[in-house]
C-alpha cells in the first residue's frame, strides 16, 4: 500500500467534504457577516483539498489529477472522518462541528510543518495560517452561543452531545500512520489529542458547556465506511462529472 497516498487522501477528503457542507450555507446564514465568513472558510477548505489531492495524485503516480480524485471515486474510497460529513442542521451544530474539527487541524498542521516530506510541510504551512483564523472564528461562536441565551446554550449543548461521538475518530491511527511516523513524515497522534483536549476543554469551559458522559465513539471514515449522509453529498458533488464524463470545464 502507498501509505503517503492513503494519508493524503484522508487529509484532503476532510477539507473537501467539510468545504462542501459549509458551502451549503451560502445565502442562508444567520447574519450577512456569517455568510461571508462561512463562504470564506469553505473557499479555504476547497483550496486545501485542491493542493492536497493534487499532491496525492503525484504521489500515486497513475496520472490522476486532483479533480479525478475529488470527483471520480466510489463512496468507499472516500476517507474523510465521519464528523465532517454530518449535516449542517442549525448554526449551532455547524459551529460546533467546525470548532471540534478546527481544534484538531490546528495542532495537526503545526506538526506537519515539521514533516520530512517537503511538499506536505509546505501545504501544512499555508493551511495552518488559514486554520488559525477558522479556529478563532468557530471557538468564539461556541463561546458566544454557549454563554448567550438559554436557548442558544441548549442548542449548542445538544450539538455537542450529538457530535461528541465522532471526535475520537479524528485521532484514528492504523498501519498507514505507523509507517509514516517511522519515516518522520507525520507525528504522534497522542500529542495531537492532548493539544486538542486542552483546547476543547478550555473553550467549552468558557462556553459553560459540558462534555457528555456517553463515551461511545464511532469510526469507519478513515477506512471508507461512512454514514448515510456521504452518498448524498457525493451525488451532488459528482453530478457534473458523472453526467458528462471526460469533459473539460
Amino acid at each position, binding site marked *: 500500500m502507498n501509505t503517503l497516498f492513503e494519508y493524503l487522501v484522508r487529509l484532503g477528503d476532510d477539507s473537501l467534504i467539510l468545504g462542501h457542507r459549509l458551502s451549503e450555507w451560502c445565502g442562508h446564514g444567520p447574519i450577512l457577516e456569517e455568510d461571508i465568513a462561512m463562504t470564506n472558510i469553505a473557499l479555504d477548505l476547497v483550496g486545501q483539498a485542491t493542493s492536497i489531492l493534487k499532491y496525492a495524485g503525484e504521489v500515486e503516480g497513475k496520472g490522476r489529477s486532483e479533480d479525478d480524485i475529488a470527483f471520480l471515486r466510489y463512496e468507499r474510497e472516500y476517507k474523510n472522518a465521519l464528523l465532517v460529513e454530518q449535516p449542517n442542521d442549525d448554526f449551532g451544530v455547524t459551529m460546533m462541528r467546525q470548532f471540534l474539527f478546527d481544534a484538531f487541524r490546528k495542532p495537526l498542521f503545526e506538526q506537519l510543518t515539521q514533516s520530512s516530506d517537503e511538499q506536505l510541510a509546505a501545504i501544512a504551512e499555508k493551511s495552518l495560517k488559514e486554520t488559525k483564523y477558522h479556529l478563532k472564528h468557530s471557538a468564539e461562536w461556541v463561546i*458566544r452561543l454557549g454563554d448567550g441565551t438559554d*436557548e*442558544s446554550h441548549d442548542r449548542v449543548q445538544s450539538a455537542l452531545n450529538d457530535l461528541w461521538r465522532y471526535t475520537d475518530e479524528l485521532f484514528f491511527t492504523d498501519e498507514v500512520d505507523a509507517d509514516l511516523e517511522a519515516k518522520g513524515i507525520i507525528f504522534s497522534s497522542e500529542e495531537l489529542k492532548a493539544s486538542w483536549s486542552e483546547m476543547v476543554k478550555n473553550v467549552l469551559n468558557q462556553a459553560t458547556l459540558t462534555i457528555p458522559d456517553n463515551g461511545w465513539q464511532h469510526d469507519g471514515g478513515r477506512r471508507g465506511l461512512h454514514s448515510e449522509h456521504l452518498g448524498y453529498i457525493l451525488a451532488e458533488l459528482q*453530478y457534473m462529472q458523472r453526467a458528462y464524463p471526460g469533459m473539460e*470545464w
Partner: protein
Amino acid sequence: MAELNIQELERRFQEKIDNDIRIEPNDWMPERYRQTLIRQISQHAHSEIVGMLPEGNWITRAPNLRRKAVLLAKVQDEAGHGLYLYSATETLGADREETIDDLHSGKAKYSSIFNYPTLSWADMGAVGWLVDGAAIMNQVPLCRCSYGPYARAMVRVCKEESFHQRQGFEIMMKLAAGSEEQKAMAQDALNRFWWPALMMFGPPDADSKHTAQSMAWKIKRNTNDELRQQMVDITVPQAEMIGLTIPDPDLKWNEEKGGYDFGEIDWDEFWNVVKGNGPCNKERVEARRKAKENGEWVREAANAYAAKQKMKKAS
C-alpha cells in the same frame, strides 16, 4: 422665512450638483434626494444578497475544484457588496434591519433577473457574462454618482464585478468550444438569459418614472435605453466570437447609428416578474425570510453575550 431658507438650501444643493461637487452624509440634502438614494441603494444591496441564491445553487455541483473555488469567491464578493451597500444606506439614516424587512415583506424590490432559475452549469456562465456584464454597465456611471459614499462603494464593486463578468465569459467560452452537449448547454443558457438581461436596465425611457429627476440630481448619468444599447453593442460581437447565437431574429447592425437594432422586449413579462410572478420570486424571498427567522436565536445570543461581557468589564 423657513420656506425661503429651504429654497436657498435647495439652490445651493443643486449648485453643488451642477458643479460636480460630491454630497456627503452630513451635508444638507432634499428629503426626496435622500429617499431616492435609500430606495436605489437598498434595492442594489438586496439584489446582491438575493443574487447569491441562484449562484449558490451551483456551488455544491460545480464541475471541478477550480470552478468551485471561483464561484465561491464570486458569491462571497456579492455578500461583501451587500454589506457595504447596506452601510451606505445607513449613512443616509436608514436602518439595516428595517431595510431588510422591507425586502421580506415585498415592499422593497431587487433586480428581477434573480427571479429566473439557474438550471444548468452553463447558467453560471450566462449569469456572469450577461448579468454581471449588465450590472457593470449600470454601475460604472454610478462611480460618478453625486452621493459620495455610494460613488466610492461603486468603485470597489465595479472592480470585482469585472472579474465576475470575465469568469462568466470564460465559462461560456469553454463550453462553446467543448462537446455538442456543452455547446447546447451554453446556447440554451444564452437563450434563457438574453432577454431578462436586457430588461435589467429597466423600462424604456418613455416609461421610466424616476429617470429625469435622478439624472438632474446626477444619481444616474445615462438613461435606461442608452445603457441597454451599449450592452447589446458590446455583447453581440462577444457571442459571435465564441460561436453562440443571440436569440433575436431582428438583430441587425445599423451602420447609420453605429449600433445594433434589436427586437421588441416583452415588457409584459418584465412587469409580471416585477409584480412577483416570476418563476422564482416566491422561493427567493422565502429563502431570505427563512435565513432571518432561523438566525434569530443566533443574533439574540450574540447580543446577550456582548451585554454580559460589557457588564463584566464594567464591574
